[in-house]
């Protein structure tokens, strides 16, 4: 959407200004940045590596030596958590991004073009929905084993976009009838450009909420995949595996569970804040950047993003 020129402020610039004016975005963005810093610089602050085992201390609470305590085999929880955070940050963000882009593109194209394009795309979406995703992954995993975490991200995204695509399709069908879309067509704007400029921005609220949910759920579904020997394997860890392993011992040895879970909650909350800000920045009627009493308005109207505020369901998923 490179419509900016020095002379005037186009949509890109206006959205960016509004985005940077929202305190939530700055807090969320800062938190994500700090998490990245912690994940990639933090391991150098301790001499323990995530593979090290300290036979002298099994299941010890946090101390000066082991900052987050130790696990059942004497692993250093601090080193493990940071190692897991490295994986989960990238997996969560990339999966959410990929699946949302795919869903938006397929859904909008199916809805906008209609006819055979619609039928074929929706047939494919339905096919993906009825396919047991894990079965497919077990079949293809031996061949992809060498491709590493990137293939893993692609697979996770590939089984996460279908329902969103269907919703985007139905939103597009109703948007297609709106006069501004018709006006663009009569002006000779090319179809893909109409989708990019008019259809997708008007679905943005939904897509953003969906993407923020996808971040949390991607981190957790990666755990499930490791049961198939795919994804993260011991001794390597991710936040997902740490939470899954720590769930049983959480009441008695809380440090094995709560540091990983807390970081995940923090991560998802930060992403939510960014998503909220982005949605408000894209929606000119939101005016969040300008009006002071944000909390009052939030209490008055239920926000669609509200349900993503708590990542508790994703933790439940792991315990289940």
């Amino acid at each position, binding site marked *: 959407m490179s419509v900016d020129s020095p002379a*005037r402020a186009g949509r890109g610039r206006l959205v960016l200004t509004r985005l940077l004016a929202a305190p939530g975005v700055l807090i969320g963005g800062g938190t994500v940045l700090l998490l990245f810093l912690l994940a990639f610089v933090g391991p150098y602050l301790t001499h323990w590596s995530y593979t090290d085992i300290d036979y002298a201390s099994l299941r010890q609470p946090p101390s000066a030596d082991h900052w987050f305590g130790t696990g059942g085999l004497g692993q250093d929880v601090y080193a493990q958590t940071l190692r897991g955070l490295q994986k989960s940050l990238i997996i969560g963000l990339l999966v959410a991004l990929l699946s949302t882009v795919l869903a938006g593109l397929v859904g909008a194209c199916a809805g906008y073009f209609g006819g055979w394009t619609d039928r074929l795309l929706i047939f494919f979406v339905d096919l993906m929905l009825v396919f047991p995703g894990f079965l497919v992954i077990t079949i293809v995993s031996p061949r992809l084993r060498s491709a590493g975490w990137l293939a893993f991200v692609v697979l996770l995204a590939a089984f996460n976009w279908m329902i969103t695509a269907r919703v985007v399709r139905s939103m597009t069908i109703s948007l297609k009838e709106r*006069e501004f879309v018709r006006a663009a067509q009569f002006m000779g704007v090319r179809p893909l450009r109409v989708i990019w400029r008019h259809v997708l921005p008007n679905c943005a609220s939904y897509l953003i909420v969906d993407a923020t949910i996808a971040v949390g759920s991607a981190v957790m579904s990666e755990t499930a995949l490791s049961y198939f020997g795919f994804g993260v394997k011991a001794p390597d860890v991710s936040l997902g595996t740490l939470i899954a392993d720590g769930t049983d011992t959480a009441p008695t040895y809380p440090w094995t569970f709560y540091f990983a879970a807390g970081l995940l909650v923090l991560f998802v909350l930060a992403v939510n804040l960014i998503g909220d800000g982005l949605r408000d920045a894209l929606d000119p009627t939101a005016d969040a950047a300008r009006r002071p009493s944000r909390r009052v308005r939030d209490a008055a109207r239920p926000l669609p993003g509200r349900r993503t505020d708590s990542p508790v369901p994703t933790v439940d998923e792991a315990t289940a």
Partner: protein
Amino acid sequence: MTTPAPLLTVHDLRVEFAAARGRATTTAVRGVDLTLNRGETLGIVGESGSGKSVTALAVLGLLPGTATVHGSVALDGQELVGRPARELAAIRGRRIAMVFQDPLSAFTPVFRIGDQIAEAVRVHQRVDRAAARRRAAELLDLVGIPDPVRALDSFPHEFSGGMRQRAMIAMAVANDPDVLLADEPTTALDVTIQAQVLEVLRTAQRETGAALVLVSHDLGVVAQMADRVAVMYAGRVVESAPVDELFAAPHHPYTLGLIGAVPRLDRTGGPLVPIPGQPPALHALAPGCPFAARCPLAVPECRAAEPVLTGPGEHLAACLRSGELAAERPAPAEVYPVPALPPTRSPAPAARETLPRVLSVDGLRRTFPVHKGTVFKRKVGEVYAVDGVRLDIRRGETLGLVGESGSGKSTALFEVLGLRPPEAGRIELLGQDTAALSAEAAHRLRARVQIVFQDPMASLDPRLPVGDIIAEPLQAQGADRGRIAARIPQLLTQVGLEPDHAARYPHEFSGGQRQRISIARALAVEPELLVLDEPVSALDVSIQAGVLNLLQQLKAELGLAYLFVSHDLSVIRHLADRVSVMYLGRTVEDGPVEQVFAAPRHPYTRALLSAVPLPDPVAERNRVRILLPGDPPSPTSRALGCPFRPRCPVYAALPAEQRPRCEREAPGPAADDVHAVACHYPAA
């Protein structure tokens, strides 16, 4: 002689709406005084947001819970404000009845019409089911619904808009109310149907002797129906007078401006008188007269205190300078600044032939298949949406396309703009036949034809800043950034907006400004033909006048040709050089605007013209009205012969030996006539 006590007295009525937390309450009605005598018709006129509907609803006690009503509403001396809901319910429908604007939502869709009217009877009268049903049939007969006994068993969706509004009136008069409140009863209807419904309202009023309160934004309707008129602005009555006096010599500058802003069916061209500015926001009113900011006569005292409604006799006005207005009786154009429009001369008929054709459509047809069945769809018929339309626009000319809803105006428009080969007939746009266009040529042609839609809110992407909206057609044609950046401020200035509005979003603008943005977008690529699809029908009259003036000015400056689609004949008369009238997908009459409006030849055009109410009570009373019976037939059947025959007054009066021609032969317009008419027996 004692004057009888008024039937309904509204005194110092105030309505406040509680807002969401953290915001000020909105006062929608700020001290309204009204009196209504037995059997009289009171018209309440005002633009959107003036509080006229809220006043009507407050009288009935039908406002939502967030509203607080102060003041007094007395019916025959009985106070209504503050009564318990039970007692009010006994009065509603029995003594005061309401006719709503949208008859589709005023009926419950799952119950039969007859049951709903019978229910209204049985709520207030102790009669049995059969008697109530008989009464319902009588009422439907009173409002002129054919075959009332059968109509009782119809569902609301089976009725047309006009029939629903009649049934609504039948329900309102079911209990012989003393007061009938009609809130914009004809706004959603076509003019010929509006004429029918107004006639029904008059009949209902005559039969029941009820007093009528008619709330409308249409000065013509009020001039035609009312005995007295109250003009509302910003939640107050600013002028109240007997109808003749009000239209002849308004004492308030706002009324004067409104009268000047309405295009007239009986007058040609010239600039309209726009009222500058916007109506004030009711939650942030400045002290003093709320109209002062827009008033050309405002003096410093106007901003000090709000003037009271006062005046000689029955003619009251809330203006400090009403005395001067009453004495001098100025014309609207003498009070309001009127933009000087560059002269536009429509070419003489002889010279017209030599001008290049911008759009030429002949014999256009478009049908839509009707499918049945869910699993195996099969075609069971066709809707003839457009069936024989001809249009001819020369360079720099404005063609007005007139027709009621369902006449196929929009379909014809979209067929032309689709740049596809037509189903039948021929479309030639700027010298190129659309049947023979390559995709690339079609794309280039799009730059030369642009469209302005009816609803400026719907046709502007809410998520795009105005600058990007206007840039869109330029980008579509591949203009470079420098040119786009230079063009946007230029376009905004051209349509009367500020260049720095480019960074705002559409929702920050008012309706009239949004329509200006729409026009700026259409002008961006310097088109030769501008298609205007009802461009002013969503706007208030005072705003509409400004947009119409802008269109006239642009046409003169840029030499544009307009295809102006409208259901409002006054607007067409004001703006167009030629007019084309459509009925049921066909062109029934076309010709130069002066000729068609002065001497319409097709019976449908004649009826249409006579149905348009004039904002002039004296002229209105002296007119002969041609009322068309019934509704336009469904376009699914392609009738043999003239499609207008079932409603045609000429056909009805024909001697038997001349009728078969209308029944067998569909009349077609003579090909190259200046003033062509599709009728076998046209008026001379």
